[in-house]
């Protein structure tokens, strides 16, 4: 397990709101291997972004808090670092591409300034050297004529170009870990294909590991090595990408895969498989298995006791009583 350089153990991140405690991330274990692309996939509100923000130390305090767990990165537990220590790592060893592209680029600062910012914080390079590095990273992420773009503002770029700029900004210090939160969701498919291709290329060139947060199983199948399926604040299944698609075992994963229409499938299917019902409210999640209300295979024990993680084949884990 040498190569698990990020190991999250029993992470619980809660929000203490006026309506009650939102258990957004509730006992999550994730590991990321060096040089691999690890997916965190699940439906809206299941806790993907909160997991990413927890790793980054960016949970809005005091409403939100990591109440339990460890985030082991190399030899440190990020959950226990001070604000200052975390700030030293952020943007340098670990960086994140945020879900909302327009809110994470500053509209009144030039592209050149923003992309160079992490270097101004974390390095002692001269302004000229920084400009050179900015030009070379902009070139690397495929911005045509980067010199002429240094003075551009975010609104002068297309959505795809803005996403490239965000990737450049996240990559400029050569981070060991990049957390990419829905980096292509707002993009058109032809542009998405460009950006995914770029991320794979950069991962090799800069030797970065990536955690890709997405709700799109197509994207997962295209580029990821390892997959974590998240449901209502918990990881319910994890394995390498081939075993999970070939042998989806948790009823939720299985149902999710069956409910996506397959492109170009000859002979139109009459009906899509559907998972009944809706996701539970994280203010008051059901005890036992959180999927029980929607599961065709639910038994009494499912509603009473939380299922344990069970190994069903090497490296493939499922949190479900069917396998326990």
């Amino acid at each position, binding site marked *: 397990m040498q190569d698990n350089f990020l190991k999250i153990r029993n992470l619980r991140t809660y929000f203490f709101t006026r309506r009650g405690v939102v258990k957004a991330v509730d006992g999550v274990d994730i590991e990321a291997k060096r040089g691999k692309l690890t997916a965190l996939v699940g439906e809206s509100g299941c806790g993907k972004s909160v997991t990413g923000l927890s790793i980054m130390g960016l949970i809005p305090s005091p409403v939100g808090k990591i109440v339990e767990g460890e985030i082991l990165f190399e030899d440190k537990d990020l959950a226990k670092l001070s604000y200052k220590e975390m700030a030293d790592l952020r943007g340098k060893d670990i960086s994140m591409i945020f879900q909302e592209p327009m809110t994470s680029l500053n509209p009144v600062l030039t592209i050149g300034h923003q992309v160079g910012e992490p270097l101004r914080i974390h390095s002692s390079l001269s302004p000229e050297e920084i400009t050179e590095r900015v030009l070379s990273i902009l070139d690397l992420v495929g911005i045509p004529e980067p010199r002429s773009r240094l003075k551009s503002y975010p609104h002068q770029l297309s959505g795809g170009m803005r996403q490239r700029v965000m990737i450049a900004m996240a990559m400029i210090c050569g981070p060991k870990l990049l957390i990419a939160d829905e980096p292509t969701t707002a993009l058109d*498919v032809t542009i998405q294909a460009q950006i995914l291709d770029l991320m794979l290329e950069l991962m090799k060139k800069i030797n970065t590991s990536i955690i890709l947060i997405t*709700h799109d199983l197509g994207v997962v199948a295209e580029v990821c090595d390892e997959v974590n399926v998240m449901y209502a604040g918990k990881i319910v299944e994890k394995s390498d990408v081939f075993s999970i698609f070939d042998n989806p075992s948790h009823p939720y994963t299985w149902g999710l895969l069956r409910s996506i229409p397959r492109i170009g499938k000859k002979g139109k299917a009459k009906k*899509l498989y*559907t998972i009944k019902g809706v996701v539970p409210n994280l203010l008051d999640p059901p005890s036992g298995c959180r999927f029980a209300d929607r599961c065709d295979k639910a038994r009494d024990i499912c509603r009473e006791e939380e299922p344990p993680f069970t190994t069903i084949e090497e490296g493939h884990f499922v949190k479900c009583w069917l396998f326990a």
Partner: protein
Amino acid sequence: MENALISTKNLTKIFHLSTGPLGRKKVFVHAVENVNIDIASRETLALVGESGCGKTTLGRLILRLIEPTKGEVLFKGENIFSLDRERMRSLRRDMQIIFQDPYASLDPRMRILDILAEPLKTHNKDMSKREIVERVKELLSVVGLQEFVMSGFPHQFSGGQRQRIGIARALALNPEFIVCDEAVSALDVSIRAQILNLLMDLKERFNLTLLFITHDLSVVSFISDRIGVMYLGKCVEIGPTADIFDHPLHPYTLFLLSAVPIPDPHARDRAKLILEGDIPSPVNVPSGCRFHTRCPYLRDVCVSEEPQMQYIGNRGFACHFPLY
């Protein structure tokens, strides 16, 4: 087409925008230009293409929610833009729309009963209160909602439930034709499958004709009989769904389909065609073929001459060098 319910003839919408200092500079947005498509009675035509290509504008023109710059929309052979107010009003019963955003399209201050009763009251002045409530109950049951939903407000329901309410509202007046504008794009996979099944059921049950606008191509292969592909305001290819997926004729269609992620990791090493560059601005549309700035099959004539839509059997395409 012989049994066309709807035909567009050179349908064009050019928006005028004022920009620059003091708004003195006028620019023209070529949102939809010379589009000629037919929609057969009881078919589902999907309209696909990337952001800004004019899908929504075309849908709104067909419903006469906006007036065209030029061209006609024939509904059962009659140009709807020449109808007087009274006749247009009665035609509106037959043509409805379902929007992308169930959150934004339902008035947050109105109870569901009133939201669904509104079209009934406007168009059937002689319906009694009791008849209206009966009809609302019926509509709710048609879209799979329970009666108690009537007394709630939109914010009390989930995204999928709100989309069902939007569908119930569109069905209230027994329309023949419905435009679904990104009707499932905002929904999670498991909920999306539920709504797609519902739409297919309703289509059969009420003999509906659908114009299904989406940027999500995997949905298209499930729901549509034919596909129209748009690029920068133009319809570039149209034909039966399976044929287009099997063998696209227009280069843009080929690249668009190739960019769609496939939820099967065993397919990840297939030869992928990645389109270079960005979509040009609809303000400065390229000369000749609008796709020529990105097309790998480009030859001189593509820059100087605009390809016209031509038909071979039921396949239509606008390209000088189609991919036979």
